[in-house]
């Protein structure tokens, strides 16, 4: 069986390579002509009933001449790519390239095609992904959407190059859309010249390795009051650079569950029609834990990507001016990153989340130990789980017995939310939400 999978993996590598090559090399008209060659080639064999073989030779020779003409492109270029530091999954990333014509002739009608680093998975990753999909897919449900190319890292637009005289440097505006978080590596670029018929591109390659960190996609979160009250923090005033509880009054804010009644500002309540409390500078402040479950089925799990996006959405939305946010997860080891109140910024959490990978080295108990060791410091916990099985239910139960308020989010693969809901209701904490891949925004809108 493994031999068969190895063979299929080879087929996958060959086909994906061919597709990548075809989309870069052929123009849209060229792709249409290529399709025409295939169709004419198939039907042309029956020359008793049709004469499409006459068109086959014409189309085939069009492509052959176009391919031959690509051998006669000898231009040389140098390039500097001006990339931003970060990009975001799904958001177009605009940047520019300074391209210099190193030939003695002016160059016109050119285009720039980016060369992405080979992002095809290893055999084991590919196999894990395929097996996980097969387990999930239902027979004869061909309308279930399967991601067409889950391993693709980015879509790029072919950018046209303005006319460049000899030794002239021109600016090329480019755009690519990242599809996966993490570092996006660019090997170089190719300056493309279409053939006279406009079917096939000849390449002059420029080695230009660079990378840009792609942050997770963020979703808008409704204004949510996270669970938990202020707690004494040992870091004390050193951490309390902005907000806390001391004799020095700082500001007014909305009442949160657990705030002492004596801090209620009655006149503001009367004016605003809702409870408002006074804030003081002190070593008492709110500290939340954002726990990310990294125990995904495989390294390209869609649920894991969405979980990272949800965690990033929380990291962006929680007012780290007013509180601390601890990001806890298990990778090759246990990690706890703290942001807020001058310790670190939310952007740094996003960078960390951009690089989080599924954990295969440790079991779930590692995350459990990490959180329980940390739980005494935090006011409340936000769990982003990938499943709602017994170990996770037990873990949540333990945290609840410690009296820590919780918000539990379970990210389910598309179409599997109902199975998560089928868990016994007694195990559910008061704030429990199931978020389905593909409907994350709607799911998060229910958090209010």
């Amino acid at each position, binding site marked *: 069986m493994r031999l068969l999978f190895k063979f299929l993996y080879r087929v996958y590598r060959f086909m994906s390579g061919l597709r990548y090559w075809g989309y870069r090399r052929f*123009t*849209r*008209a060229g792709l*249409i002509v290529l*399709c*025409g060659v295939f*169709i*004419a080639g198939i*039907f*042309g064999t*029956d*020359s*008793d*009933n*049709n*004469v*499409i*073989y*006459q*068109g*086959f*030779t*014409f*189309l*085939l*020779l*069009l492509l052959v*001449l176009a391919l031959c*003409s690509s051998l006669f492109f000898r231009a040389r270029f140098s390039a500097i790519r001006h990339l931003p530091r970060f990009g975001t999954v799904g958001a177009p990333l605009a940047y520019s390239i300074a391209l210099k014509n190193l030939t003695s002739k002016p160059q*016109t*009608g*050119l285009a720039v095609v980016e060369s992405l680093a080979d992002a095809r998975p290893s055999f084991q990753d590919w196999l894990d992904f395929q097996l996980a999909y097969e387990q999930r897919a239902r027979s004869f449900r*061909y*309308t279930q*959407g399967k991601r067409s190319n889950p391993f693709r890292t980015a879509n790029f637009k072919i950018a046209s190059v303005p006319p460049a005289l000899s030794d002239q440097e021109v600016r090329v505006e480019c755009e690519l859309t990242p599809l996966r978080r993490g570092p996006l590596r660019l090997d170089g670029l190719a300056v493309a*010249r*279409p*053939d*006279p*018929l*406009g*079917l096939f591109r000849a390449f002059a390659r420029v080695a230009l390795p660079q990378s840009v960190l792609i942050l997770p996609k963020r979703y808008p979160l409704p204004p949510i009051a996270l669970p938990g009250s202020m707690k004494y923090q040992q870091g004390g005033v050193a951490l309390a650079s902005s907000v806390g509880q001391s004799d020095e009054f700082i500001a007014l804010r909305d009442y949160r569950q657990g705030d002492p009644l004596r801090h209620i500002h009655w006149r503001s309540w009367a004016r605003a029609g809702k409870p408002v409390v006074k804030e003081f500078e002190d070593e008492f402040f709110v500290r939340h834990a954002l726990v990310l479950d990294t125990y995904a089925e495989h390294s390209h799990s869609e649920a894991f990507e969405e979980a990272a996006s949800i965690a990033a959405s929380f990291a962006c939305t929680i007012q780290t001016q007013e509180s601390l946010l601890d990001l806890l997860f298990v990778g090759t080891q246990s990690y706890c990153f703290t942001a807020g109140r001058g310790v670190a910024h939310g952007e740094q959490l996003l960078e960390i989340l951009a690089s989080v990978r599924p954990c295969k080295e440790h079991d779930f108990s590692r995350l459990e130990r990490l959180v329980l060791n940390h739980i005494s410091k935090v006011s409340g916990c936000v769990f982003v789980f990938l499943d709602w099985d017994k170990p996770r239910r037990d873990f949540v139960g333990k945290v609840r017995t410690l009296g820590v308020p919780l918000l539990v989010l379970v990210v389910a693969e598309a179409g599997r939310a109902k199975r998560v809901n089928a868990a016994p209701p007694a195990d559910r904490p008061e704030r429990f939400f199931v978020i389905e891949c*593909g*409907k994350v*925004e*709607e799911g998060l809108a229910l958090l209010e």
Partner: protein
Amino acid sequence: MKTPPLLIGAALAFWGWQTGFLIPGIIMGLSLEAARIVRARWEFSDDDLHRIWNLCLGATFAAAIYAFNANEGPAEFRDLFHNPGFMSQHGAQFATARTTMSVLRWLPMIFFCFVLAQTYSPRASVPLHVISFILRHRLKTARKLGAPAPVSRTFNTAYPFFGLCLFSASVHSTDDTTFFWGFCVLTAWALWPHRSPRFALALWTAVLALVVVLSYFGQRGIGQFQSYLGNLNPQWLGAFARRRFDPTQSQTEIGTLGRIKTSPRIIIRVEAPSGVPPRRLREATYRAFKNRTWYSEFTENDFSRVSETNDTTFQLFDKPVPETVRISCYVPGGKALLPLPRGVGRLENLLAYNVWKNPLGAVLEEGPGLVVFDALYGPGPSMDSPAEDVDLTLPERDMPALEQVVDELHLQGQTIDQALQTLSRFFSTQFTYSTWFEQDRSSHRSEPPLTRFLLHTRSGHCEYFATAAAVLLRKIGIPTRYAVGYAVHEGDGKNWVVRQRDGHAWTLVWDDRHKTWREFDPTPAAWVSMDARQITLMQRISDLWARVTFEISKFRWGQSHVRDYLLLGSVPILLLLFYQVFFRRRRRRSIQRGTNSRSIDWPGFDSEFYQLERKLAVLGLSRHPSEPVSMWIERISEHESVSEIQGSLRELLALHYRYRFDPLGLSAADRRKLQSLAGSCLEKLEERSVPEPVSR
């Protein structure tokens, strides 16, 4: 991607030219290209387009069924199941191929509606979920769950339709180069907007010319290569052709082992006004017998054209023809021999392009796939040529057996009538009819098949009997010929049907006294009853289906008047559709008009206040655009002609506003008050002279 001007129109005209639908092609092309001139557009929602797409798919399905019937698909497949074998397998393949080709040829016509809808809609492209079942299902599921609709790609139908036109234009077997040149021109036309601006026009033209020249020789090379491959095994190619009689030769099954396969498929229908049909319908006649095969000793070049006396009447032989029989038969491939009664003189109501005949009485017809005609026949001379020496030739290998039988029957010296009686008796009493032949393991197995039949086995099918009778009569000096065709014996209501298994062979005997050919059927009459035993329930069902397909084929090949009625019946429907499309369609929108021209029935639209407003406008006190009515009244109240009614005007405006915007409306009393106030104001304004316009 937008197509260059006139490209789609030219592609459709080219398709029409290549496939014989020139007029429809030109009309469709003009309809699409007219969108560049006609500015009117119709809004089609995604659901509308999906319905049109479904209509096109339904039409494709209907066309496939129709083409399958028209190309004798059911019959061929029935043959395949009744008599599985190499021939029936290839017959089914051939029908499938022809069906496919027919549908492919019609595709531009079928999908024209869809392209037309997009062309005359304001859309530049169509979402993919309109045509994709899977994407549509996902969209529906998302809607049902309240999830956001999945992003669907869009596409412009123009280029796919262009490709479809070119492809469909190629679906014909005419071996000339018109398709090649048209294909090159249209493809170059389509590639024109995509050429690289880096290169000069001359280079583009030169490259294209080089491709055209190379591909011209290339396609000729491919054509020759395919012919070469085909010639390597002509039998393989020939197997695709439908089994039918060859006017030049007839290979018999004499000497064949196993069961002679026969098919119950109905291939001819016969109507005889007299109530008695001819017993046999002949298709071809042969003269020389060599090695199990009968030869006519004529070629296809010996067929002479029969000129029609009017559009549908063909005079074959000038003689009195008192009897009439109506024959309906399929013409596979549009060209075949006609089954005709002996002594036929004239064919009437025959919708044929060409009719030829050969000296042996075979009539070849070229025309539609089904013909229904009247054959007028009578006794006496026929169009067969008189007997010649070749009608007396004998197979050398069978001479000893022939001499033995002639001696045994004392045939030598008998008159023609006596000889026929003797032979008839000989075959009916001492021979049996059989379509099953076992391996001969006796000492006679090295003898020729005909000799074995005459002397030892004495069992065979009609070809044995006809051949044996022909050569025995020749042995005693009577010229004979071997005729093939069909026996008519099975009634079907008032009419008769002829099945494939009714294919028969018999002998023509030259009557030197009357200088005419007589038919002699030496096969024992039992063969008819033996075949009739094979009729089953399945047979009856398939006969019913054959009847349906026959009626469809009659319609398809213009052998009925239904088409005329349909055409006449469609006129009022078309007129109604025309009226609906151009005069009743509410969603018609002219892109020239920026504003919405729908009449709106607002509440309070009949308020008398508007009359007053118009009257004041006539007096030069018109309201400025976007000026609120209350401000307008304030502005004009200073004018002397309005000063008298300004109090009433304010009250009137309050009532008017309530009438227009209050959900409860006005009571009957207030409504009357509004009317009376407006009336009195109007009267007062009438009394005043036309004032000076108020400066703005």
